[in-house]
């Protein structure tokens, strides 16, 4: 059966997304927005060089991002490769910060379904509470929607109680219509969250991509009543960008989505910028990079 795509107008979607970037977020709204953004962060390290020591340090930062500003909450989760899940889980025990693991041959996903399932099972067995899988772009671009969905369904089964975030890697999909279509496939197949990117591609959570995915989530919720979350990952490196994503969510899905149960921001460097901006709202001057711990 040939694929039917819902229309998305590139110019229109980018105009609307950019217009929402012009919202003026000042004073108390900025403080609240920054606290919200921190509480929704999936603080991420996905490097070949990751070690237990590095992950433990990042976990400390995740639990208490700014010791001098106690009103800053913990982040939502730590996101690591499956080999580091046990370390993170131990470091985060009892803190309320979740452990998320990328899986399924991240980031390219060019491995067999069996290998993807095994990767997922390993992460869950090590204690991962959230799994960030990648869709098979190979199957999607070849037009095999059924295989894309079947893989997601199988991974979802392998997750058990763990929450499943499905990464579309939008930069590789080629058009907003494909982004919308892939969002729908992922939600139909049982995704708990849909997520923009691996962070390893040329572009990530651009405002336009975020808006298309948010509209897909809204339409899916209207049609089925099922709530699916959204994770913006890739390229959200400044407070302004993070607040822009919150505005996109607020004005597309509503305030009920402004909670870590429904919205995540996957990033690493944005945290210290959020802290610096928060400090600025309090003492009126920009701090230095050294004022905050690297991790």
């Amino acid at each position, binding site marked *: 059966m040939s694929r039917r795509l819902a*229309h998305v107008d590139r*110019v*229109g*979607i980018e105009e609307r997304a950019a217009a929402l970037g012009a919202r*003026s977020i000042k004073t108390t*709204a900025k403080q609240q927005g920054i606290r919200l953004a921190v509480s929704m962060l999936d603080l991420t390290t996905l490097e070949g060089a990751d070690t237990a020591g590095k992950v433990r340090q990042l976990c400390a930062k995740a639990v208490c991002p700014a010791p001098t500003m106690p009103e800053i909450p913990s982040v939502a989760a730590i996101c690591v490769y499956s080999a580091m899940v046990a370390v993170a889980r131990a470091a985060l025990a009892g803190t309320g910060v979740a452990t998320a693991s990328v899986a399924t041959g991240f980031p390219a996903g060019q491995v067999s379904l069996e290998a993807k399932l095994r990767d997922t099972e390993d992460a869950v067995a090590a204690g991962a509470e959230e799994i960030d899988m990648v869709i098979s772009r190979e199957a999607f671009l070849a037009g095999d929607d059924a295989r894309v969905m079947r893989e997601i369904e199988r991974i979802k089964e392998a997750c058990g109680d763990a929450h499943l975030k499905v990464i579309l890697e939008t930069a590789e999909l080629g058009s907003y219509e494909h982004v919308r279509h892939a969002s729908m496939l992922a939600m139909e197949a049982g995704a708990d969250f849909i997520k923009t990117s691996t962070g390893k591609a040329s572009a990530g959570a651009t405002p336009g991509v975020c808006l298309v995915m948010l509209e897909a989530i809204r339409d899916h919720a209207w049609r089925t009543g099922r709530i699916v979350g959204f994770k913006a990952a890739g390229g959200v490196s400044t407070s302004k960008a993070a607040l822009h994503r919150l505005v996109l969510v607020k004005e597309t899905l*509503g305030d009920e989505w402004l909670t870590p149960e429904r919205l995540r921001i996957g990033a690493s460097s944005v945290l210290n910028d959020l802290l610096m901006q928060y400090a600025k709202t309090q003492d009126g001057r920009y701090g230095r990079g050294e004022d905050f711990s690297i991790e």
Partner: protein
Amino acid sequence: MTVEPRQSTVWNYAPAPEATDHLRLRDRYGLFIDGAFREPAEGRHEPTINPATEEPIAEIAWAGPADVARALEVARSAQPRWAALPDRERGKYLFRIARLIQERARELAVCETLDGGKPLRESRDVDVPLAAAHFFHYAGWADKLRYGVAAREVAPLGVVAQIVPWNFPLLMAAWKLAPALACGNTAILKPAETTPLTALLLAEICQEAELPPGVVAILPGDGQVGATLVRSPGLDKVAFTGSTAVGRDIQGALAGRGVELTLELGGKSANIVFEDAALDQAVEGIVNGIFFNQGHVCCAGSRLLVQESVMDEVIAKLWARMARLRVGDPLDKNTDVGAINSAEQLARIEALVAAGEAEGAVRRSLACDLPEHGYWFPPTLFTDVAPAHRIAVEEIFGPVVSVLSFRTQAEAIQKANNSRYGLAAGIWTDKGAKAFEVASALRAGVVWQNTYNHFDPTAAFGGYKESGFGREGGPAGLRPYLRVVRSP
């Protein structure tokens, strides 16, 4: 009518009002005649008020018959010297005005918002930059006039009277003055009664640009001033933007006098959404088409035609989108919909909305906290509208959209053209061929495809039928201000 409550929010944007302390307004403004502000002969001043607060902003001199006569005399004597300047020199003055508008952009935007009630977001991002762009555009034409109209030799008309409305005060002044001056005419501009301030700031800009005295006169006042102006001897052309009723009166007054005329009048423009459109972007375009500037837009997409097969989905999405509109303080940078321009306009909107309810259309208005003072009307959606209803026929000029359904492309075209107006239209479809086919069947001066209310100085704007005649913008906008002396 049903009023649906707004959900409670957990992340409210803090107030973000634009500062006003940089705006240097005088307490009183005179008439701008012969390059200087002058007291009116009969000494009449009227306050101009902020429609969002009903507080007076400044006292404005209103022109009397003697002032009109004086301005005409000065414009007549200044015209030959202005037209005799080398074309490039005239262009330089216009470039200078354009740059000064850019330099004073923030001030002009705040002033426009204070005087007219439109959201700062719009005056800052649309009105003022476009006004500058029009001056830049026609500055460029000043030494290429004959190429713009494909003639061997052209000449200015002489003295032109220009009457502009209150919905885009500065932008309409720019639309009128820039081509008139580029072509070598001298101009007398009458701004609208309720929104004279930015035109008077433009007068200051003309002074700063050292525009020769007499080339531009600005005569604030009510309709009486306009009526006196167009009936005065010594005019070569009248350009009017405003209501169809006044346009008719002007055309009658000019009949048989050999005075050129262009009219840009009302509209009841059709915004057509086909089932194969990108619906979310279409909804965005519907919102921009009717709630931009509180619907005080002559080309507003006030008649929404939706294919029946997607009607429910479009209405659901539109209502959800409307619920996100932020109505309130026009100076707040996050405001989407500001104040209604005047008590008079508010009364007119209320009367037509009441007529819509009485005729059986289903009304939904946004439940929003409207300020206690000032003139406000909530964004409103009428469904189950029949083509015979007044709200489907008459121009409301407010934030009110009437939704009608259609079944086929042929019916869409027929319904869209079934209007005494023909100013603009919107077409929403992902099929390019269909868009062009429909566009060429529509009797409307402007047709937007997959967008709405986008303006550009290079594009011609004007109407069919009772929406007027003559074009503004682009090379077509030169023609109404020129006489062709020799054809190629």
